[in-house]
């Protein structure tokens, strides 16, 4: 019998799991995919929003501003990159300037610190290369960039270190609410019994909710496409650059990533379904136009990849948080569209409080360790550190990914740390092997060898990202003989 099962191992589910791991309770995270961060948490804008675009008084506004303020501590403890680069919302007309002023007013009501309306010159000073068509901008110094999958992975590893159990390949399909417990059953008939269920199932959270008798909301998918630019061409942008928002969200932005690339995105394709993360030519073309509008010099012709994520848009227009009215054993963290990444730490804290109010006895454990360590990447080491690293572990001397300079030691550590099953994309997200310019052209076969060596998964069974995404289909004729 578990005290809490969390359904969904995205950033929200994993942040909640970490927060729960501070207490003397038994917690399991159940995830349908082979790894954490396989949903919206792996493909988004990676912005820790300041909190000015949420309507005052909403759940979104509250947890966004609170979450933003918690990021420094969480990232420090969890060894996750965070850069407070600040964000600009650029206005291209006087009407848009009115929009931007409205955002400032929202922000001030929401308690966002440091907001300022900038003139054109001040805006250009903050971000050289901004379009000369800009008439002014909103400046938010607390806007930051982070790495969303690293955040998810780190929360999960830290929760796991503190005793939370993780189960993968577990698609919750049937949920039975008993008098004093809930039974969650997977498509493979594995059964978990728990006193409470936390619903953090991303785009599928409405389905989980319905399985537990709460049909007070629905969720629709809204796809967002991105193009990621070559690092060599990415020096042109230092801040997060938004355009004044449109009806479908915050609009297309141009931003640096914590790894030194830049991206343009996202598009907003309403009612796109919950699974389709394909990128369309129309989307890419629209992104290029929008990017050029913000920053005319944007090197839109230097992409290294394109990708898409799906926002979980709630029918209620706000995050659905707290105990369900229909089922007291269900605690919701549902409809977590943007700014869900920014809000995750605050959602985690509020969810724990909701569980307490629902009757869960929460006693802090004395030995909670908030720190999750990650060795410094070889690529970021000084010469002396590199020499010392190879001295200690010769596998640091074997560079596997030559574009991003990732060594065998780092890949081995990533495979060994993986809570689910090691996959090519999983290794990539943890180490950057295959994320560079050649996109795995050189290192994919070598990473596969290491997954076999350290993860014990035979070559034929290695996948790109779980399911049927096998990398190879068998041996060659030569080999079969």
């Amino acid at each position: 019998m578990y005290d809490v099962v969390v359904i969904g191992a995205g950033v929200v589910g994993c942040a909640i799991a970490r927060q729960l791991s501070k207490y003397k309770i038994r917690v399991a995270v159940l995830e349908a995919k082979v790894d954490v961060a396989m949903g919206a948490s792996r493909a988004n804008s990676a912005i820790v929003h300041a909190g000015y675009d949420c309507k005052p008084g909403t759940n979104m506004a509250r947890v966004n501003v609170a979450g933003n303020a918690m990021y420094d501590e969480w990232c420090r403890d969890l060894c996750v990159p965070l850069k407070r680069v600040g964000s600009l919302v650029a206005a291209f007309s006087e009407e848009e300037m009115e929009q931007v002023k409205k955002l400032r007013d929202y922000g001030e009501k929401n308690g966002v610190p440091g907001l300022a309306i900038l003139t054109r010159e001040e805006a250009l000073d903050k971000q050289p290369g901004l379009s000369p068509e800009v008439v002014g901008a909103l400046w938010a110094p607390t806007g930051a960039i982070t790495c969303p999958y690293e955040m998810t992975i780190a929360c999960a590893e830290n929760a796991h270190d503190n005793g939370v159990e993780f189960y993968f390949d577990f698609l919750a399909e049937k949920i039975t609410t008993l008098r004093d417990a809930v039974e969650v059953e997977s498509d493979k008939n594995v059964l978990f019994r728990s006193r409470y269920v936390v619903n953090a199932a991303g785009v599928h959270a409405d389905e989980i909710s319905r399985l537990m008798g709460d049909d007070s909301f629905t969720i629709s998918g809204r796809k967002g496409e991105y193009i990621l630019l070559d690092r060599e061409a990415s020096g042109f942008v230092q801040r997060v650059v938004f355009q004044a928002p449109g009806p479908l969200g915050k609009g297309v932005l141009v931003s640096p990533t914590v790894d030194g690339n830049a991206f343009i995105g996202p598009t907003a394709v309403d009612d796109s379904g919950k699974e389709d993360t394909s990128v369309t030519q129309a989307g890419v073309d629209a992104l290029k136009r929008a990017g050029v509008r913000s920053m005319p010099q944007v090197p839109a012709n230097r992409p290294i990849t394109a990708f898409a994520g799906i926002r979980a848009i709630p029918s209620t227009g706000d995050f659905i948080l707290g105990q369900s009215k229909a089922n007291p054993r269900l605690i919701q963290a549902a409809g977590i569209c943007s700014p869900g990444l920014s809000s995750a730490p605050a959602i985690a804290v509020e969810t724990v409080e909701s569980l307490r109010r629902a009757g869960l006895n929460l006693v802090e454990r004395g030995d909670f360790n908030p720190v999750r360590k990650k060795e410094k990447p070889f690529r970021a080491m000084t010469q002396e550190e590199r020499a010392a690293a190879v001295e200690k572990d010769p596998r640091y001397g074997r560079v596997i990914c030559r574009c991003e300079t990732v060594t065998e030691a780092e890949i081995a550590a990533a495979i060994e740390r993986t809570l689910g099953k090691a996959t090519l994309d999983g290794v990539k997200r943890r180490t950057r092997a295959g994320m560079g310019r050649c996109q795995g052209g050189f290192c994919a076969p070598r990473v596969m060898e290491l997954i076999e060596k350290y993860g014990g998964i035979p070559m034929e069974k290695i996948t790109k990202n779980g399911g049927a995404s096998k990398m190879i289909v068998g041996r060659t004729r030569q080999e079969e003989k």
Partner: protein
Amino acid sequence: MDRKVDVAVIGGGPAGLAAALKAHEAGARQVLVMERDSYPGGILQQCIHNGFGLHYFGEELTGPEYAQRFVDQVEHTDGIEVMLDTMVLSVSPDRVVTAVGKAGLITVQAGAVVLAMGCRERTRGALGIAGTRPAGVYTAGCAQRLVNMEGMMPGRRVVVLGSGDIGLIMARRMVWEGAKVEMVCELMPYSSGLNRNIVQCLEDNGIPLYFNTTVVEIHGQERVEGVTVAEVDPATRAPKMETARFVPCDTLLLSVGLIPENELTKGTGADMDPVTSGAVVDAARQTTAEGIFACGNVLHVHDLVDNVSREAAIAGENAAKYALGKLNKAETVRVMAQGGVRYVVPQRLVKGEGKAELYFRVGAAFKPARLTISCAERVLVSKKKLVMTPGEMEKAEIDLSQVDGDVTVRVEEG
């Protein structure tokens, strides 16, 4: 500084090995080759097909056989050391090479450096093909490594995008391994591959090749389930969506171009040629960073390894001369591509005695082609050729005593 050498060679592929041998022959006493892989030979080790060495050795060898000739010679040469499993991380403008290997971090002060890092393949991301991102999309070279060196089949039903040599050779290899190759699509109205490969790899195996055709979308959530191919407008290269059709397959192989691997080169401060994506060099294959030379696929993409070996010998010989203080600094003139010529290597020449070979490629097919090389008003070379295509590297020799200013290389129809 851990050690000093006369000539440091970065990369142990055919270019690096040939450069090392020639540098030693030209008098360099200590030559050090650094190779990141566990074996020398470079990309040739995975090219197990025939067709190497026809020009250089006058016989047909496989890639590994061709490489082995150089490996054997290097092994029998006392003054050349090959460090394997050693990845060079940086080369400074004053020729300090920093590398990492099992033994740790190494720094080497070199009298001269030869850059021979080869190239990498262009990817799906660089092309921006729309659709999903499933498993089963490989660059042709990556698939070649899996099949030829690891004995793994990347798929059973294949579409190849791009008719570069690696794509053509892999199309045939996949058929030989029992896969079905549905088609090879080529965006351009001509192939960038060698004609002999089109005949031997495609025609002999009944694989259709469609020109002016591209892949516009990839389908399949987890593994590739098919691709949408469409014809393109020959003038604008924009896909004509009314011609789009779905082709079921489980694998898409990309053979859409090679890009010289020049991260290290940029660190030396050498001038780069935006067309070749390699360094700007003179006839000695010296870059604008003094004492730093470049050859092979890192300088410009070659289709024949024979040309690589020849170019590497030039770089190796001059690197040795430089290290021994025998290569004097001289003023150079520019060599410029004009008309149908896309690029010329070398991009600089030193005025003086002797002859220089110019290597160049055209940007479109010319049937017939007229080549004119001139210096100011003086015509140095005027030649007609039945056909010139972007897939084949062309060569011409000029007399340096005739050169007293910038040289232009021009190809026209006629």
